[in-house]
């Protein structure tokens, strides 16, 4: 390999690694938001909050 190939491979691996990490984090964030919205739409949070007095959206 030429020196250019080593440089290109380094930047390529870095872009791929950070891109995959960001995509995984964003997908996980979106999944948790969807599940939370679904639970709240079913009234799980509201009923529990009425009984426990928690503020809406408060994390444990």
């Amino acid at each position, binding site marked *: 390999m030429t*020196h250019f190939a*080593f*440089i290109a491979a380094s930047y390529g691996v870095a872009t791929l690694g950070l891109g995959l990490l960001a995509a995984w984090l964003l997908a996980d*964030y979106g999944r948790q938001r969807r599940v*939370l919205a679904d639970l709240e739409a079913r009234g799980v949070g509201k009923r*529990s909050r009425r009984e426990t007095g928690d503020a809406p959206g408060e994390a444990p």
Partner: protein
Amino acid sequence: MAILDLANPVRFLSLSARILPWIAGAAVVTLAVGFFLAFRAPPDYQQGETVRIMYIHVPFAWLGLFGYSLMAASSIGILVWRHPLADVAHKAAAPVGATFTALCLVTGALWGRPMWGTYWVWDARLTSMLVLLLLYLGLMALRAAIDEPNRAGRAAAVLTLVGFINVPIVKFSVDWWNTLHQPASVFRMGGSTIESSLLWPLLVCAIGFTLLFVALHMLGMRTEILRRRVQALEARAAAEAMA
């Protein structure tokens, strides 16, 4: 108001929702400027064009160590104050720190082949960085292996603090042992030995990657807080169904 009162999950979600887009945007802009400067900088008199790998390899190494130090600080928050946000910060930092450490090792190998004639040597600096990656992976595996979240957090915190001994070993390995890896050239007594035309692009890239690390960590923390909220609601729903 005490600092610990400010650092609660609800306030964190509210604050991070406002500042995360700005941090992510600043990371993209700073990295774009950093790469522009890095590819306009002159080649090194010894390394030639291959020095351009340093502009990503060195920030990855710094942030791999930074991530672990952040986890060690969070571990104190977990063990001393049992603070829920410290546990969230600890858990969210592991995959981000592990990725930066792995990228440091891979880009270092790709620099080593043309410069040293080999991808890998069992040199003290390289080996201690590999140990750092194994610590990150071990901590993630430990959390995954324990079902009870509080126990998992405390066990991971103890292992993190034990493993923190590796951080000064990584830093000073090039001074304590005779290594193929070059000694410290940026943060050292007597100032940097890097010529300013190469140093400035490196520092701008390092700031850009640091902002990216903070943005990814903050996103991971937001996700973890939502996950715990989901788990709490599911547990309540299950309890209501049984009642």
